[in-house]
């Protein structure tokens, strides 16, 4: 091709329409090469404002996460994936809440006692996939360990393509058994050793609507039973059963002229603690040539409070009453946004993700009778590198 010559107007016109022709999305197939990925993330919660925590420690969680993943074809129809991660966290989390002279909740962080939390979490998971002509079967098993928490889990998934591979139906099951054995249990009169089991079933349907649009809808039901309270809070008593139902929808549309894709997700959730939530997020995946991609993203989240949420711990109630001052159970809203960059150099790819998150009871679309104390604001970034060989 003679690239140095000015291109003939006919050639420009014909290439423009030829290049716009879509190729259809690929059917199931195992990876043909191995990919090794490493990602470092830092998650840093803002200090609590002095107004909410007038005494003592205000510094909250700071978490560093190292993740390593290997995906490798292990036969003509199977692939194996290994995930390992190492997290180190330090800082403090809300211990209990009290009322100030105006009746406003004040947060006392666990670090106030001088025993700020410092923990390490290690996780290792294996998963395998079997690809056949019209679908994929997958199984996974993993274990996560901390000083005071251990989780073992297993999952199974199956997906099948129909309708000339325009429709994919997937079902997955997962089961986890967790052990909770808080540190300094005797010193702080915490529970010694408790268990929790989590069972989840998800059903999803993905549809290629046309060459530029795909839609996915999924229903997930999760049932948790056992010790569901926070052992590190001075007073945190939650029911020992929780049933959750979530419905997620995702629409992705590629814009040929802009060489970009818009992804819109909406999720609604309900559980029998009394929490309902809605999440709306949008991301714009802008390709810049064949190498770079810039992805600005935005999310809005809102939830109602759990039935037993209290912004101020009531130590007068009998311990048979459910109550929790965990801000995550309060009525609040959160907005977050950020920008991700991806550079793909063929065998090498680099990524950078960033996100700023602000939760506030003022953003809630639900009734806020008791504003949560200690709602988080955080900044998270990650740097990743993928190597294909």
């Amino acid at each position, binding site marked *: 091709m003679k690239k140095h010559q000015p291109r*003939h107007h*006919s050639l420009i016109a014909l*290439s423009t*329409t*030829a290049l716009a*022709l879509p190729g259809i999305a*690929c059917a199931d197939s195992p990876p*043909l090469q191995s990919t090794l990925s490493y990602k470092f993330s830092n998650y840093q919660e803002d200090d609590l404002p002095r107004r909410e925590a007038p005494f003592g420690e205000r510094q909250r969680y700071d978490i560093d996460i190292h993740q390593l993943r290997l995906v490798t074809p292990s036969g003509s129809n199977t692939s194996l994936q290994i995930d390992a991660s190492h997290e180190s966290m330090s800082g403090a989390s809300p211990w209990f809440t009290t009322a100030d002279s105006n009746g406003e909740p004040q947060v006392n962080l666990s670090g106030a006692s001088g025993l700020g939390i410092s923990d390490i979490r290690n996780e290792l998971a294996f998963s395998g996939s079997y690809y056949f002509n019209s679908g994929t079967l997958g199984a996974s098993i993993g274990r996560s360990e901390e000083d005071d928490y251990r989780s073992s889990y297993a999952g199974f998934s199956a997906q099948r393509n129909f309708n*000339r591979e325009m429709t994919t139906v997937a079902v997955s099951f997962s089961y986890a058994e967790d052990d909770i054995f808080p540190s300094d249990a005797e010193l702080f009169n915490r529970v010694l050793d408790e268990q929790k089991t989590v069972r989840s079933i998800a059903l999803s349907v993905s549809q290629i609507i046309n060459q530029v649009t795909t839609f996915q809808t999924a229903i997930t039901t999760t049932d948790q039973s056992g010790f569901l309270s926070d052992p590190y809070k001075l007073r945190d008593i939650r029911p020992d059963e929780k049933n959750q139902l979530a419905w997620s929808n995702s629409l992705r549309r590629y814009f040929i002229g802009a060489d970009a894709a818009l992804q819109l997700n909406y999720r609604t959730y309900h559980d029998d603690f009394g929490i309902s939530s809605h999440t709306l997020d949008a991301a714009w995946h802008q390709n810049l040539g064949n190498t770079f991609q810039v992805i600005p993203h935005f999310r809005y989240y809102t939830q109602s409070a759990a039935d037993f949420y209290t912004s101020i711990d009531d130590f007068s109630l009998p311990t048979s009453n459910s109550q929790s001052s965990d801000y995550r159970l309060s009525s609040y809203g959160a907005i977050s946004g950020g920008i991700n960059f991806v550079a793909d150099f063929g065998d090498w790819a680099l990524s950078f993700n960033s996100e700023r998150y602000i939760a506030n009871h003022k953003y809630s679309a639900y009734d806020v009778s008791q504003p949560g104390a200690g709602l988080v604001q955080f900044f998270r970034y990650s740097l990743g590198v993928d190597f294909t060989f």
Partner: protein
Amino acid sequence: MSTTLRRIPFKAMGSHCEIQFMGMSRIEGRKKLHPLLNEVQRLERKYSRYDPDSYLSEINLMAGNRLGIKIDAETRLLLAHARSCFEQSDGLFDITSGLLRKAWDFTSGRVPDAQEIEQLLPHIGFDKLEITRSRLIMPTGMEIDFGGIVKEYAADSLARMARNLGIESGLVNLGGDFAVIGQMPGGHPWPVGIVHPDKKENLMARLTLNQGGLASSGDYERFFLHEGKRYSHLLNPKTGWPSDGLRAVSVAAELCTLAGTTATIAMLKPEAEGIAWLQELGLDHVYMTADGTIDGQGMTLVKVTSESQLEPQSSTSVNNHVIN
């Protein structure tokens, strides 16, 4: 990684097709290429003009319906490309011209009378179609077909899919329309030979393809002689009579689709104009004129001697021949 060339032959779109790749066993390759074969079949079923159940047949059945037919995005984009072919060829490349086959039967070798053709011409003309964002409204008696676009589009699509599947080195050949998946190992281009229109056992040109595609248009076997005159299967939609231009054209471009449409347009133009058009575009090409002269640009022209005889194909040699 294995450096043995694998060939997966199959029949699709009425042609002998083949996917060639390096680095996998034949059995592994067959499994991995399954989605590609599905994709060719999908396009064939969707746009076949022979299959009465195809989507294309459904579209053609709706000719005359004032509400038209709802078209999907893929069809809309194919129509957009067909429009640009029509406009850039001054009306010579016309997807509504298939109707002329009613008068021209190339198997019987009968020359139709002028009246038969005259009756068809009012039903031909891309500009008579009304295309909105989601609908195609086609006047009574008209029909469309994407011959000359879909096979080339399929070749490009397959090459793109193969790359997405992680295949680095390979070549798609759909009945002489080539699309490169990726260079041969070691960064070498794929050698491709173009068969001489008259002497099937000889090459007319050789070239190497690094990327993109190669497509050919020619009267090869699809013509007939009547009273000493050669009638090409390529019909001029304006006159209804076979085009009187070049005998064969092959073009290499960054997409097989682009190569195919430019080669077809060059064939439909009068000979001198066809040659001028190829030269203006600046794409690598080779052509043969009515008097048998072979010329072009960016390709190695092969003199017809015993040396240019085709070697028998084996799994280890790389001979890609245009068989139109």
